[in-house]
């Protein structure tokens, strides 16, 4: 039961999804499975959140180092959840003017956008410390990156003005040809990797997800 049911379930669902791609009447089944998928996904997210609360609750209860931040996590979660579920007009909770929207725009958005923006600093530091023309391969990576970084902004356009804006055109050329070729090889490789992995999963060979007793 523990091992067999998951394997059989995966195989049935997987094969149905593949066949439905070719047999239109099976679309009904495919649509149903997809809807279930999203229901299960919602529960999966709830499971994750429950875990988060349990971990932080435990931290507070045991007065572990930094427990006050655990309180911040739980309070933050509770406030936005209660407001979003009960006080923001149901399904239209995201409309401008709702309390949920206010929290979203003034807390969630600045926090997440700033997290993204931190990347600008890390990119700079990584370029300085990690990007070395160690060998031919790394030099090619660097060379292409250089031409693109300069060619794709107005600076490259001016700098190479005497050369007929060569830098800007070189950037376009790299994107159109060598970049596309390399990209395509990666894509085709990944496609085969996915196909093969999917098949292994459906055949029950790759059973990491159903591991254990």
């Amino acid at each position, binding site marked *: 039961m523990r091992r067999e049911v998951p394997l059989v379930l*995966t195989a049935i669902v*997987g094969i149905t999804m593949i066949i439905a791609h070719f047999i239109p009447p099976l679309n009904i089944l495919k649509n149903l499975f997809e809807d*279930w998928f999203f229901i299960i996904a919602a529960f999966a997210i709830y499971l994750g959140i429950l875990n988060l609360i349990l971990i932080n609750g435990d931290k507070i209860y045991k007065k572990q180092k930094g427990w006050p931040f655990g309180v911040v996590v739980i309070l933050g979660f509770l406030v936005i959840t209660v407001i979003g579920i009960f006080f923001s007009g149901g399904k239209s*909770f995201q409309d401008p003017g709702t309390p949920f929207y206010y929290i979203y725009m003034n807390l969630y958005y600045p926090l997440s956008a700033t997290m993204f923006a931190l990347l600008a600093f890390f990119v700079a530091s990584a370029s300085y410390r990690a990007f070395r023309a160690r060998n031919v391969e790394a030099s090619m990576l660097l060379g292409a990156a250089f031409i693109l970084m300069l060619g794709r902004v107005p600076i490259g356009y001016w700098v190479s003005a005497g050369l007929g804006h060569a830098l800007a055109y070189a950037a376009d050329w790299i994107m159109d*040809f060598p970049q596309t070729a390399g990209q395509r090889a990666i894509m085709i490789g*990944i*496609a085969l990797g996915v196909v093969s992995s999917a098949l292994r999963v459906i055949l029950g060979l790759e059973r990491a997800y159903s591991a254990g007793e």
Partner: protein
Amino acid sequence: MSGEVIGVWIGAILTLGIFSFLYKDNPFYKFSEALFVGISAGYWFVVTFWQYFVPKFWDNLALAYSELLTKGRVDYHWIYLLGGFFGVLMLLRLVPKIGWLSRWSLAFIVGTTAGLQFTRYLESNGIRQVVGTIKPLLVSGNMNATIGNIIIVVGTFCGLIYFFFSKEHKGAFGGAARVGIWFIMITFGAFFGYTVMSRMSLLIGRMDYLFGIWLGLY
């Protein structure tokens, strides 16, 4: 102070809180981080509740129930109960003895994905790209297109050779694989350049928020 002004102040202070990490890890950052973790968990809870749980599960059952009440017939929408059943199995993970039941839901998820991605990747990332690579190596009267086509064909061909697993990269085969990895590296270079571009743009947005919207300096 209007709600909007207060909002900008809160946003700006939290922005500085996150940025303070750049100097060093500190309580101000830890607070902002903890708040972010809590708020994002709450945000996703609310979003999944209204946009997955309610429309896909609740609404379908409500429909089935009203059909039963008004017309007295058992509607096929009841089948969504089974989806909910799998969902609940997922939560059983928290009950130690029967936690293994959550694997059934997982199996369902994995099967759906495997099935969907099988055909999709084979077509869009496989066949379509192969077809796109079939080009004449000589376009009469068009030097640019000729060179471009040669590069695309050679680059894709050699790149694919690099990914062969069952053959040692030796001799001509190894040479081709090496050319392939060069193309792959140029691709990575392009990604690097573009990613730098992207990150800088996001920082511009944040700085504009701090200096323009919050402080109103220009």
